[in-house]
């Protein structure tokens, strides 16, 4: 099995763990963390393809990951801020209870 | 340096399209982004919204300076061109370009808008919306200065009216509502004629691109194509476009909306109206009417020269009769802008006649552009000063409502005095170079017009000095009679200081602007022929 395939399997597994976490847990913070995991899995793919691509000189994969990390950080900040806002509003952070737009 | 990083390059981007950094679009739309943001953030503190508006209004200036850095003045053709096919059916392109003329006006807009916002810092009535409207109008004005296709040029042109309307109506003085309606309906009336004219032009030529149209005009094909329409169309197209522009400038006698609009608008609004919006009209004359209809313009110039002269002389004399300071400054705008048109008409008048000096035409056109910039600075500063007076006197701004302000507020008096002298064309300040070049050009092209226009100079001096004498000199009286008339605070200094500094800099070193426009103007003057 080639290293690239290993990497991809690694990232798929990480992605699925994140997905399962996001689906199965009701705590919004954990859901967000699951999503972060999925993003990381995607980043792993970028790096893997960059690392094993025939001509890796342009460093596009690396740049993509840098942007992705930046956006993920923004996402985390906004997501957690939303969690806190929701918590303040309904005194818990169960995702299934935060289903209404009206408050 | 920054330009290099952004891979901005005036030379190559004249041909290469798409790959280059779209700096012109950024210039046009960055204020609108700010406006959108500001519109979305409801309930922010007034100081925050003011600051945000100010920051976003500075965007075009910063970008303009970046463009200036990469700008190659030696090239005559528009630079940083962005051209994308937009509406195939109408052959409309999203076409932006920057040449010396546009650059000067973009910089002017970039300077005036933040300054006007600073001058309106004390606006208490919904400062967020004020900022939104201001950013909208800034973007529209920039669009007018950068667009090279009539279609979106016209969109920007009309869009600039909407925020202006609300600015005057909602933040203006007691007669604001009426003035706003008059302003908008008058200008839209003019624009309607222009739209009609361009529609006919499109039918005749199949393009709305300014550069292409100018090319056609230079070939002489445009005349033939218009003639093919038959009837009165060839003349009507010209008259339509002319009317639209003449109202906007305004050319005497289409100027009656101006004094009331300027007088009733809030301070920042007046500053922007006079500093930038009035330049849109002159810009239209230079960019559209003159290149596309050289022959028609030439034929009309004997009459138009008279109108411009009337603007110069009668505008100044009418100002002398005003007792409302804002109206007085507004009339001075009529007077100053008429100089620009006078120069342009004189150039057009002399085109094709024997004894045309290319140098005179160069001087006249350079003077026009310099005058546009300089008038923007000094008129904005004057409106700002009147605004300060108005705020001190609780809304009164009559010529006789003040006295001895110089005793009460020496710094304010000094800055206002500099603006006044800049406006009356004192050498050493910015106003002089433009006026001198205009006079020099007009004298070479039509000596009589220059001689008559001298009366305008004299009258300007008289009414501005009367303003100065009544308001600032003499014993303290009116609003300045008690000790409550304080000198400028920091936030009131902020708009005036940059303007005054620029007046000095440009007065001593006009090369800063002249260097940008000279090759362009020289090439214009070098190709003065009638098709």
């Amino acid at each position: 099995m080639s290293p690239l395939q290993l990497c991809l399997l690694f990232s798929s597994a990480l992605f699925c763990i994140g997905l399962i976490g996001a689906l199965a847990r009701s705590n919004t913070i954990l859901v967000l963390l699951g999503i972060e995991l999925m993003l990381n899995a995607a980043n792993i793919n970028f790096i893997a393809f960059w690392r094993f691509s025939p001509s890796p000189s342009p460093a596009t994969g690396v740049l993509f990951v840098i942007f992705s990390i930046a956006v993920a950080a923004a996402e985390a900040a906004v997501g957690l801020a939303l969690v806190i806002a929701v918590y303040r509003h309904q005194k818990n952070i169960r995702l299934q209870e935060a289903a209404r737009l009206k408050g | 340096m920054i330009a290099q990083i952004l891979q901005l390059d005036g030379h190559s981007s004249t041909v290469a399209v798409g790959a280059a950094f779209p700096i012109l679009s950024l210039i046009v739309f960055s204020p609108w982004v700010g406006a959108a943001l500001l519109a979305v953030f409801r309930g922010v503190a007034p100081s925050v919204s003011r600051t945000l508006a100010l920051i976003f209004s500075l965007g075009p200036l910063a970008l303009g300076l970046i463009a200036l850095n990469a700008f190659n003045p030696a090239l005559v053709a528009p630079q940083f061109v962005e051209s994308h096919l937009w509406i195939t059916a109408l052959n409309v392109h999203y076409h932006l370009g920057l040449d010396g003329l546009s650059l000067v006006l973009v910089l002017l807009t970039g300077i005036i808008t933040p300054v006007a916002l600073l001058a309106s810092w004390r606006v208490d009535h919904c400062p967020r919306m004020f900022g939104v409207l201001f950013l909208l109008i800034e973007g529209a004005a920039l669009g007018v200065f950068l667009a090279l296709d009539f279609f979106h040029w016209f969109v920007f042109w009309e869009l600039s009216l909407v925020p202006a309307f609300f600015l005057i109506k909602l933040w203006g003085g007691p007669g604001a509502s009426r003035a706003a309606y008059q302003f908008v309906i008058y200008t839209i009336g003019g624009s309607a004629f222009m739209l009609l004219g361009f529609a006919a032009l499109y039918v005749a030529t199949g393009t709305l691109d300014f550069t292409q149209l100018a090319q056609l005009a230079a070939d002489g094909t445009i005349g033939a194509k218009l003639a093919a329409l038959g009837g009165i169309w060839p003349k009507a197209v010209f008259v339509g476009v002319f009317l639209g522009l003449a109202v906007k400038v305004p050319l005497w006698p289409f100027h009656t909306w101006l004094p009331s609009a300027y007088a009733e608008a809030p301070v920042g609004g007046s500053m922007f109206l006079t500093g930038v919006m009035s330049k849109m009209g002159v810009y239209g004359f230079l960019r559209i009417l003159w290149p596309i209809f050289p022959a028609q313009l030439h034929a009309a110039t004997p009459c138009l020269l008279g109108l411009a002269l009337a603007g110069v002389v009668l505008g100044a004399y009418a100002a002398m009769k005003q007792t409302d300071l804002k109206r007085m400054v507004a009339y001075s705008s009529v007077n100053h802008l008429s100089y620009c048109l006078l120069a342009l008409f004189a150039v057009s008048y002399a085109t094709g006649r024997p004894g045309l000096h290319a140098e005179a035409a160069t001087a006249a056109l350079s003077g026009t552009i310099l005058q546009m910039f300089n008038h923007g600075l000094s008129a904005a500063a004057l409106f700002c000063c009147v605004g300060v007076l108005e705020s001190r006197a609780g809304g009164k701004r009559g010529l006789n409502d003040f006295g001895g302000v110089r005793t009460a507020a020496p710094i304010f008096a000094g800055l206002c005095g500099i603006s006044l002298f800049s406006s009356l064309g004192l050498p050493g300040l910015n106003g002089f170079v433009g006026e001198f070049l205009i006079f020099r050009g007009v004298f070479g092209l039509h000596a009589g017009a220059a001689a008559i226009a001298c009366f305008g100079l004299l009258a300007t001096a008289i009414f501005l000095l009367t303003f100065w004498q009544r308001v600032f000199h003499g014993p303290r009286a009116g609003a300045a009679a008690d000790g409550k008339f304080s000198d400028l605070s920091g936030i009131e200094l902020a708009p005036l200081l940059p303007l005054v500094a620029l007046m000095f800099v440009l007065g001593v070193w006009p090369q800063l602007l002249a260097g940008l426009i000279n090759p362009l103007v020289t090439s214009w003057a070098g190709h003065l022929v009638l098709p």
Partner: protein
Amino acid sequence: MTGLAVQNLWLIPALPLVAAAIGALTPRTGRSLAAGAAIAAMGVSFLLSCGALVTALAHPAAHAVSNFAWFDLGASAFRLGWLLDPLTAFMCVMVTFVGTLIFIFSLGYMHEDVNAKQFFCFLSLFASAMLGVVVANSLLLLFVSWELVGLASYLLIGFWFHKPEAAAAAKKAFITTRIGDLGLLLGMLWLYDSTGSLLFFDGGNGVLEANTLGALTAHTALGGFALSTVIGLLIFCGAVGKSGQFPLHVWLPDAMEGPTPVSALIHAATMVAAGVFLIARVYPLMSADQALAHTALHALTVVAFIGAITALMGALIAVAQNDIKRVLAFSTVSQLGYMMLAIGVGSWVAAIFHLLTHAFFKALLFLGAGSVIHAAHHEQDIRSLGGLSKKMKVTFATFAIGMMALAGVPFLFSGFWSKEGILHAAHEWDVSHLPLYAGLAAVVLTAFYMTRLVAETFFGKARSHASDHAHESPATMTLPLVILAICAIALGFLGTPAFPWLQAKLLGEAEVHGHSLLEGAGLMMLSIVLVALGLGAGWALYGRKLRQKSTSPDPLAAAFPGVIAFLAARMKFDELYAATVFKLNSAAATFADVLDRFVWDGVIRFLARLGEFAGIVNREADEDGLNAGFDAGSKSLRGTGNAYSRAQTGDAHGYLRVIAIGFVVLVLVVMMGGGR
């Protein structure tokens, strides 16, 4: 001592400009800084000017220039430059020297004024602009400085701006000179248009150089005049305004509302002389048409007659004035007329000589008057002064020297020699002798009114409380007086006919050719007699029987009440202008306003009403016809929207699940589909 190179000539005006900037930027309390900077800058400028003089005198015939591009215009650039020749150098030395003294004088004079730092700022600005006028090698640069001089004058006349009269006088001065400046502007434009340059000297291409002048005289302009005549006369308009020549002299007496040092520096010594300087500078242009026989009018002829009229008129009016500064002001007008007269009759050198001597003795007189006014608590009416000769010995002595120099008391005083030169030149003018007669008449009158002035001011007994308690001014004020008095005597010997060193240097001659004093002895005798006559008459009327009370009648006015009243009202020029020019002006303004308010606005209103009517018609049609259809259409759209919104459950897990399942299904479909 090595001279100052022309490339560095800009330093001379730049230093006072820096001082002005310092003055402008310091707070109000920083008056000693502003004053110190101003005086220091003037002092250094004076030293530099001396250096420039050394350079200029080394090659008096050369016009050293240093030109530079100001901004791009067309294929080339618009150029400005500096010029160094003896004329420039002498003027620089005079301006900076007199200026320094007057600055020092102002230290004492303006001691109590709260705005003193502004005063020094404006003075420095003025000095800078004036020096700019002097060193300019471009008519435009000269014009720029010229206007700035006007601005400084405006600011200084209106220095006590809280007084309405001062504010009005300032405005009047600015507007009146601007009228003349418009002529100058037009002349400049015309010159530029026809020669393509505004540089005076530019290696053969300047406007004052032979081939350009030749081209100018070759063309004819309006009315058959040579182009150079017309341009010269237009430029002369500027000089008329600035130098207070008839008919634009009205602003100069009013300008005495400013502080006295200002009157001394600006309205006696330097600025008003700028007009004379201008004409002397462009003398080659003015005189270019002299060679043309067929022309109807030479430019210089006009100059000569205007000068003669002004000289006589000024002297006449001065006789009937009672304000000490007004007398001196009209005397200035008269003397400036002399200078113009000199240029007009072709001897610009005599004009400059008189300009230099006049600058010193008139500055002396004004400062002396300032000293008197300062001591007498701003009492300026000579009828209320008197008896000061004992109390203010230095002031009296120096003032008397100045008076004698102005009156042209023979041999010892500089005014005699310079005035003699002018009369001599007028005598030799072959066009007309009328200017000479006017000049001679003015000689008598000058001696007369100066005697009256001195007698009324200094002799007799004090006729007011203020003059009774007067005392000598401080040293900062008397010292300049003494220095100026010395100069007022000494300067004359630079240009006596026996050894006309100044004239020779100005004309660029390497050697000095003296004449015997007897060459023009007849004319000289005549003028000596006339001076004696004037002095005698003055003494007879005012000195022998000294005024007792400030209200007692003037002996001359008692004799010729009508004439003196007319003269005291300054020949009613102001009233004349008020009845004509001002009326016309305000009528034009009213016309423009009415045109706007009623005619054009009326048209617009009519159109608006028309539009309104059309709108009413349109609205009726709309409301009944079109609106009903749209209502029905919008109702059905709303129903569709309601149905779709059910899918929005708000359950985030659900969404995620749907996405995941959708992804799986899609992948499966693709894989089953053969991976195409």
